[in-house]
């Protein structure tokens, strides 16, 4: 079907062009492209605008769902939250991901140290000693043995996650039990959050000027339902191909289709090491794309597909017309 110049590898080599040249105004081409792109951009921006959902705050969260906030707070205090168990780079929690028995995050280690009890609960509360009963509660908590604290925390966690838990008249309501000072502390943190003081406390943790939101974002993300339910409603969750989606009806990062695809299929769909597995796959595939010119088989697809016959149809036509004359 196809003959080629002898000795040339068709997918690697090509003889230099010695055929006809034609006038081609590159500067004019680029200028026209620029004008077209500007016109398209202005047109699309005028017609479709752009999305801007306001950022959420601790105050919004704790006012909308005070019990969800309190559940998150106790999990930060007793070390059962997602962040408390995260592992590197935040802490030595057990949940670091691994592939073939190797955990890159463990190898790199803890570089953004996070102590959820101190950073999310005890630290912010220490700025609010004027709240009724809080100073005494914090002293009692500090004076207690680790076993006592653990017992209070577990009891309170059970009570606040029970269906009877609620919020009335500005305070959390839980069944009676032995919570020591923990009930007062979590109630005070909820009050603090609802007033906006927790936002202020966490956002200025590094001083008056801050551009680092690592800790407040980790606390928001630890909510069992508030943040994720907003995202679910906007189809942004990982299981909803959310990485390529945008709020509203806007197109998002469609170019992430392949990255988000791997999270939808087994075994990554249910794997606790899904992130690392997907990253490993994507790094391999990206290396493959990068090295297409060197990969036998892959680099022959263009020749096999024969789409090039369409792109260069005029060239092959003129060849077909010209060649018989040469043979005569």
């Amino acid at each position, binding site marked *: 079907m196809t003959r080629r110049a002898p000795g040339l590898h068709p997918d690697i080599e090509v003889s*230099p062009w010695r055929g006809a040249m034609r006038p*081609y*105004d590159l500067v004019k081409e680029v200028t026209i492209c620029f004008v077209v792109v500007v016109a398209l951009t202005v047109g699309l921006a005028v017609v479709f605008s752009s999305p801007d959902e306001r950022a959420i705050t601790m105050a919004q969260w704790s006012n909308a769902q005070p019990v969800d906030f309190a559940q998150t707070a106790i999990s930060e205090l007793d070390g059962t939250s997602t962040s408390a168990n995260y592992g590197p780079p935040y802490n030595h929690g057990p949940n670091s991901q691994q592939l073939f028995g190797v955990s890159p995050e463990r190898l790199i280690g803890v570089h953004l140290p996070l102590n959820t009890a101190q950073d999310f609960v005890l630290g912010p509360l220490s700025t609010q000693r004027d709240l009724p009963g809080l100073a005494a509660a914090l002293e009692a908590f500090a004076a207690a043995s680790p076993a006592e604290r653990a017992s209070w925390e577990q009891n309170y966690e059970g009570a606040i996650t029970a269906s009877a838990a609620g919020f009335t008249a500005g305070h959390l309501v839980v069944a009676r039990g032995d919570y020591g000072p923990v009930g007062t502390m979590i109630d005070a943190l909820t009050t603090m959050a609802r007033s906006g003081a927790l936002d202020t406390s966490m956002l200025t943790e590094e001083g008056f000027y801050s551009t*680092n939101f690592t800790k407040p974002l980790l606390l928001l993300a630890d909510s069992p339902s508030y943040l994720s339910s907003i995202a679910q409603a906007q189809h942004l969750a990982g299981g909803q191909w959310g990485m390529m989606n945008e709020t509203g009806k806007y197109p998002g*990062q469609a170019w992430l289709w392949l990255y988000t695809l791997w999270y939808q299929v087994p075994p990554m769909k249910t794997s606790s090491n899904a992130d690392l597995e997907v990253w490993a796959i994507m790094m391999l595939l990206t290396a493959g794309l990068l090295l297409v*010119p060197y990969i036998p088989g892959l680099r022959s697809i263009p020749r096999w597909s024969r789409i090039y016959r369409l792109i260069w149809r005029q060239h092959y036509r003129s060849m077909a017309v010209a060649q018989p004359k040469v043979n005569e």
Partner: protein
Amino acid sequence: MSQQRNDDLSTQWSARVRARAVQALPPDKLLPDRQPAYVASWIYLFGALTMTALMVVIATGAVLSIFGPTWWHTSSVGHFVNSLHLWSVELFFAFMVVHLWGKFFMAAWRGNRQLTWITGVVSFVASILAAFTGYVSQTNFDSQWIATQAKDGINSTGGGALFNVLNFGQMLMWHIMLLPLAVTAIVILHVLLVRHKGVVPPFEDTTEPLATSAIGSEA
């Protein structure tokens, strides 16, 4: 210091660099007025479209930079400039991917053009990173959600210790300083390589038998 004689100037560093540059990219190669006859398809425009979309992305980003990262939440003009920035990015990626498809099916790496292909893929990856850091620098709900989700992927590789997607200041610096520099530099290299090597010629097919190859039946 004695004045260098004219014939010594060829050993001067500046003269050597200029000689090498002119040899690699003589003016009529750098900015040609003719192209091989086979350069006759709309697909060839997508490189220029991608490059000009990048110019619009950078220009609109520069306007956003003038007034700072939260301006667009409170100003209708700012919101409009943000819309321009978003849509120029969507156009940039769309044109870039069509360009990539086109160059793949032309096997445009042939004839020692591998580095052109590689710089193209690197600029694609750097652009994805640039777009991502833009999404987490929006200072709105999108940024909060995308940052808290994406941290798990980057942390799992160990990269989170260095590249903390929850650190807004760090992400903004990458978005408006490091990655635009990187993308622009790679794109310039990519374009210079295209000019240096020229547009890849067609596969050297000769249809057989030649005489019966009817015009218009090949595709």
